[in-house]
């Protein structure tokens, strides 16, 4: 069963593009990384899921419920960490957390609140305006988790968190995930998606360019090929599909990415005179760059 289903979703702000064509499904129990550069449309997609903004066209549902028609019912079952932690001031941390939890009837869940406060090393008596950005982010994370939501939507949740707290945060998310929580994790930081997410959706210029499991993305997609020829060659002479992007396309040393059938490549190279050949799995970062280019 899919917790999130998005089909051909588009949002335009007058003439400017928010998102153009987003289609993706997030299965229950997944940790889904939603990755793309700034301005790609990650936050716009999330805002539509939360019904903060209305789609221009397309459909989106969460828990099988329409995000426009049934937004209230959806929000009852999810927790959301926005990219900017803008909290109500004139409250202490504890007052704010209880205020937020009261929307879900979880304001008396003292054990859970104190557990999370301890985990994030946060003083419940501090006033919100006195908190640093990092500590505000912690409060924002805790408020999203107090009521044990079925779905967590996280928009750049680790910005402002120190490495130790980031590590604790990821451990907590894994624990929540083991207990059945689905996680939708928006980020532009490749390393955290790589270590944390099971599946990744890559968004570029308002469109989904690929949805893939992290493991299979690493394994079967892109290979980095280095060939050393005894004489100068031009990669265009090979006339093969699946080549690109090219790092070095002319000369004795050709370096390029290959995303086609590896047997076809080997077959083609078998008729060539070559001095050396290496085919390697590129770092994840290079795979993402391939999609962005």
């Amino acid at each position, binding site marked *: 069963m899919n917790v999130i289903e998005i089909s051909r979703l588009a949002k335009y702000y007058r003439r400017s593009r928010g998102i153009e064509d987003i289609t993706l499904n997030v299965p229950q129990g997944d940790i889904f990384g939603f990755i793309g550069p700034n301005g790609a449309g990650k936050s716009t997609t999330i805002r539509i899921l939360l019904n903060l903004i209305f789609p221009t066209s397309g459909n989106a549902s969460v828990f099988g419920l329409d995000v426009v028609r049934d937004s209230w019912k959806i*929000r*009852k079952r999810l927790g959301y960490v926005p990219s900017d932690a803008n909290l109500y001031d004139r409250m202490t941390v504890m007052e704010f957390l209880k205020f937020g939890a009261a929307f879900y009837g979880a304001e008396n869940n003292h054990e859970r609140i104190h557990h999370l406060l301890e985990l994030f090393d946060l003083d419940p008596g501090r006033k919100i305006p006195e908190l640093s950005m990092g500590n505000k982010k912690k409060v924002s994370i805790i408020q999203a988790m107090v009521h044990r939501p079925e779905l967590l939507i996280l928009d750049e949740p680790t910005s402002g968190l120190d490495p130790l707290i980031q590590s604790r945060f990821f451990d907590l998310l894994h624990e929540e995930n083991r207990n059945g929580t689905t996680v939708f994790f928006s980020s532009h930081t490749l390393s955290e998606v790589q270590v944390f997410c099971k599946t990744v959706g890559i968004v570029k210029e308002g469109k989904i360019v690929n949805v893939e499991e992290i493991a299979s993305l690493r394994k079967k997609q892109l290979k980095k090929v280095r060939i050393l020829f005894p004489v100068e060659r031009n990669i265009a002479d090979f006339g093969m599909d699946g080549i690109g992007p090219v790092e070095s396309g002319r000369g004795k040393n050709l370096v390029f990415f290959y995303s086609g059938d590896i047997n076809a490549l080997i077959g083609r190279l078998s008729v060539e005179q070559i001095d050396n050949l290496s085919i390697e799995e590129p770092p994840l970062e290079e795979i993402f760059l391939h999609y962005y280019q």
Partner: protein
Amino acid sequence: MEMRRNLRSLVIWSAIIGLLIFFTMSFFRSVLQYQQQIAGMVQLIPAMALKMRGFSNINDLFSVIGFYTANNLIYMMLLGSIFAIVLSSNILLKEEYGKTAEYLMSRPVTRREIFTTKMTLAFLNIILLNLMATLIGFISIMVYKKGSFSIHPFLVISFYTLLLNLVFGALGLFISVLMKRARPITSFCVALVMVLYFLYTISRMSGVDGTFGYLSPFKWVNVDVLSPSYGIEFGRTLAFLGTTLLLILASGLLYRRKDILT
């Protein structure tokens, strides 16, 4: 929480308006004391200027309710309307430009609940300000009056003032939901009240009840408190309540479909 956030503003506005009313009413006995001299001086003032000031007749000045209406109503009509429009225009919008809307609207609350709660709180504040001002006005009249005083016109004019403030409350709400990009609109709202008050003043000065004057809700208030037939008129009440309800309804519908861009 919202009530607590607005409490300080309500107290400050009530105190300012209350003090102004009390201070102005403290001159009433002096006016009576120098009634003849003042009447002689006022005869030199052009009738148009008197009308602009709110006097239809010089004798208005020598009755406590006439004095109260001519001098103090401006505080509640103008300042009360500014309070109402500023409060209601910000009550939804400040969540957006303060960037807390994202937090609030990701909770399991419907937009209708948010709108209704915020609107109710804004209107409650407007009603409380009017109650405070009316109470202070009544006390100041009782303190400074000489002779008899009929409470009926006082209550009627206070009722009209409340209706006026509610219209501006609804107008502020309406303007705020029209805003695509959230930013404070206090200056615009204050300017709008001033323009409408200016329009009302001009229409009074001209002495002609032309239709253009009725573009301003200030004109809908019947300030002729010394008229024997003075009372709550159905047409005026309908205009106030109808406009208020229409603006609220339109605001609610627009808010339900508004993109919250923080």
